[in-house]
C-alpha cells in the first residue's frame, strides 16, 4: 500500500487546484475578449461553457461521431450561437449604456438556459474521457489523463491567442479596437465586425472549457452560472482585459480553493478565494495586472 504522506497530499491539492484554475482561466479569457471589444461583461459566458459540454455530449454519445470531429463541430456550433447573440441582442443596441448591455446578457443567459432545458432536459450527462481513465502516479499523487488534457489545452489556447493578437492582422485590429475604438475606426478597421468576432471567439473558448471539463464533472443545463462567476472572478482579479492576468488569476483562485478545502475548511473554500479577491482589489483597485490608467479611460 502506498503511503499518503503530507507531501503527496500537497501535490494532489496543487494538481487539483491547477485543473480547476485552468477552467476558470479559459472562462476568464472569454470574458476579457468581449470586454476588450465592448466594455461589457457578458453574463452569458457560462452558458457557452454549458452549451459546449452538452453539444459535445450529443455529438459523441448520440450521434456517435469521433471525438476530434465532435470537438471541432461543437466549437463551430457554439461560435454560431455567439454570433447570433451579438447580431440579435447586442448589435441593435450599440449606442446603449454598458450596464444595460450587461443586463441584456443576463436576460440572454436565462433564455439560453431555458432553451437548453428544453433541448436536453434537466438531468446531468456524462462524457467519456478523451483518453481513458487510468490514473498516472506522480510524486505520490494520482493524475487522471483528463487533467493533462485540461491543463494542456489551456496552455495551447493561451499560446494560440497571444499569437493571434500579436501576429495576425485581425488579431491586431481587435486589439486596436480594444485600446481605442474611435482611432481604430479612423484607420479603417470595421469595429462592428470586430465586436461580432469577439463574441464568436469568446463563445468558442467557452465551448472548449465546457468540453474539456465535462468528462470530469458531468454537465447539465444550469451549470453555466457558477462557472461564469468563477471566470468573472479570475478576469477581475487578473485585471480586466488582461489575458495573462486572467490565466494567472484563474490558477490562483483554483489553488486557493483546493488548498483551502484540503488544509483549512472545505465549507469556507469559496469564501477564502473571494476574500483574497476582495483584499487584492482593496489594495490594487484594477486587479493584479490591470492598469489604473487604462481603467480610468473606460466608461464603466
Amino acid at each position, binding site marked *: 500500500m502506498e503511503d499518503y504522506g503530507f507531501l503527496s497530499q500537497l501535490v494532489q491539492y496543487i494538481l487539483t487546484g491547477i485543473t480547476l484554475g485552468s477552467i476558470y482561466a479559459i472562462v476568464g479569457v472569454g470574458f476579457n475578449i468581449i*470586454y476588450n471589444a465592448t466594455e461589457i*461583461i457578458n453574463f452569458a459566458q457560462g452558458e457557452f461553457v454549458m452549451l459546449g459540454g452538452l453539444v459535445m455530449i450529443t455529438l459523441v454519445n448520440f450521434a456517435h461521431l469521433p471525438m476530434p470531429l465532435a470537438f471541432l463541430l461543437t466549437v463551430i456550433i457554439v461560435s454560431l450561437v455567439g454570433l447570433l447573440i451579438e447580431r440579435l*441582442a447586442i448589435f*441593435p*443596441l450599440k449606442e*446603449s449604456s*454598458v*450596464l*444595460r448591455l450587461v*443586463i*441584456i446578457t*443576463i*436576460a*440572454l443567459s*436565462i*433564455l439560453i*438556459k*431555458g*432553451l437548453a*432545458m*428544453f433541448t436536453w432536459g434537466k438531468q446531468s450527462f456524462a462524457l467519456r474521457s478523451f483518453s481513458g481513465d487510468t490514473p498516472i502516479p506522480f510524486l505520490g499523487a494520482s493524475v487522471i489523463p483528463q487533467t493533462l488534457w485540461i491543463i494542456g489545452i489551456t496552455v495551447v489556447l493561451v499560446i494560440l491567442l497571444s499569437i493571434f493578437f500579436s501576429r495576425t492582422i485581425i488579431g491586431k485590429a481587435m486589439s486596436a479596437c480594444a485600446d481605442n475604438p474611435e482611432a481604430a475606426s479612423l484607420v479603417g478597421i470595421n469595429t462592428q465586425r470586430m465586436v461580432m468576432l469577439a463574441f464568436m471567439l469568446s463563445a468558442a473558448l467557452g465551448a472548449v472549457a465546457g468540453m474539456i471539463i465535462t468528462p470530469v464533472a458531468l454537465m447539465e443545463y444550469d451549470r453555466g*452560472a457558477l462557472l461564469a*462567476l468563477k471566470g*468573472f*472572478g479570475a478576469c*477581475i482579479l487578473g485585471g*480586466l482585459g488582461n489575458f495573462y492576468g486572467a490565466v494567472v488569476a484563474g490558477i490562483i483562485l483554483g489553488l486557493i480553493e483546493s488548498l483551502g478545502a484540503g488544509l483549512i475548511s472545505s*465549507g*469556507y473554500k*469559496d*469564501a477564502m478565494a*473571494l*476574500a483574497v*479577491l*476582495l483584499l487584492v*482589489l*482593496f489594495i490594487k*483597485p*484594477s*486587479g493584479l495586472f490591470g492598469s489604473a490608467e487604462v*481603467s*480610468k479611460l*473606460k*466608461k*464603466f
Partner: protein
Amino acid sequence: MGRKNTIGVLGLALFILFFPLTGRIPAISHYVDIMTFIGLTAMITMGLSLLMGYAGQISLGHAAFYGLGAYTSGVLTAKFGINPWPAILVGVLLSAAVAVIVGSPSLKLRGHYLAMATLAFGEIIYIIFNESIALTEGPDGFGNIPHLSLFGFTFDTILANYYLIWAVAILMLIFSLNIIHSRVGRALMSIHGSEVAAMTMGVNAAKFKIQVFVISAVMASIAGSLYAHYVQFINPPVFDLFFSIKLVMMVVVGGMASVWGAILGAALITFLPEWLIFLEDFDILAYGLVLLLIIMFLPKGLSSLTGVLYRLVAPRLKSGS
C-alpha cells in the same frame, strides 16, 4: 418633494389601501400575498435605485443586507427570545456597520470591479449563513420566528402584514423622494454625471457614496427583518447571489434613475412568473424573452412607459374636454 410626487404617493397609498378588495375575486385572491412580497422587494430596489440611478454605483450584493436583516431578526427572536422590534434595530445597526466597513474600500472601485467586489461580499455573507450552523442551522434554515406585534395587536395574517409592510415601504418611498430633492440628491446627481467635476465643485463624492450605500443597506435590512417575521422561516437560498442579480435587474427594468421605476420593476418581475404560470414549462423561456424585450425596447425602463402613455393619451384627453 414636488407636487407630482405628492400626488403619486397619495395615489399609491390609496391603491394599496383598496387593493385587498381584489381578494374577493377568486382568480386573483392570492395577489395580496404576492403584493406583500413586492412591498418587501420594493424597499430594497428603492435603495438600490438611489445607489445605481443617482449615485451611479452598482451593487451585486444587496441580497446580503436583506439576509443580514432577516437572520439578525430571526436568530435574536427565535433563538434568544428577544423582542422583534429591538431585534430589527440590531439588524439595522449591524447592516449599517457592515455597509460602512465594506463600502469604504469598495466604493473606491469602478464599474465592473465594484460589481465583482459587491458580488464577492454577498457570496461571503451567503457562505457564512450556510456555515455558521450553530446559529443559523445552515442550509436547513430554521423556523418558529414570531410574528410582529404592536400594542397588543399581532400581525399574524397576510392582510395585517400587507398593510404593515406597505406602510413601511411608502415611508421609505417618501424618504427616498426627499433625498433626491435635497442637497444630497443634487450632489449625487453630480457624482453620477462626472465625479471629477463634482469634486472640483467641492462635493465630497466618497462621503456621499458611502452614505447612500449605508442607506440602501439599511432599507434592505429592514425588508429582511420584515420578511423573517412574515414568513416565519428563513434559509440561505432566499438571500443568494441570484436574488442580488434579480434586484439589479428590477431596478434597470423599472428605469434606473427613478424610485418609482424601482417599485414598478419589483412589481413586474415578481408578478411576471405568476402570469406565465399557465405556460407551465415554457414559462422560463417567456420570462427571459419578456425581460430581454423590455430592456431592449424600453431603454429608460418601465417608468418611461408613463411618459409614452401620456403622449398617446394626453392629446385625446385635451380634445375631449
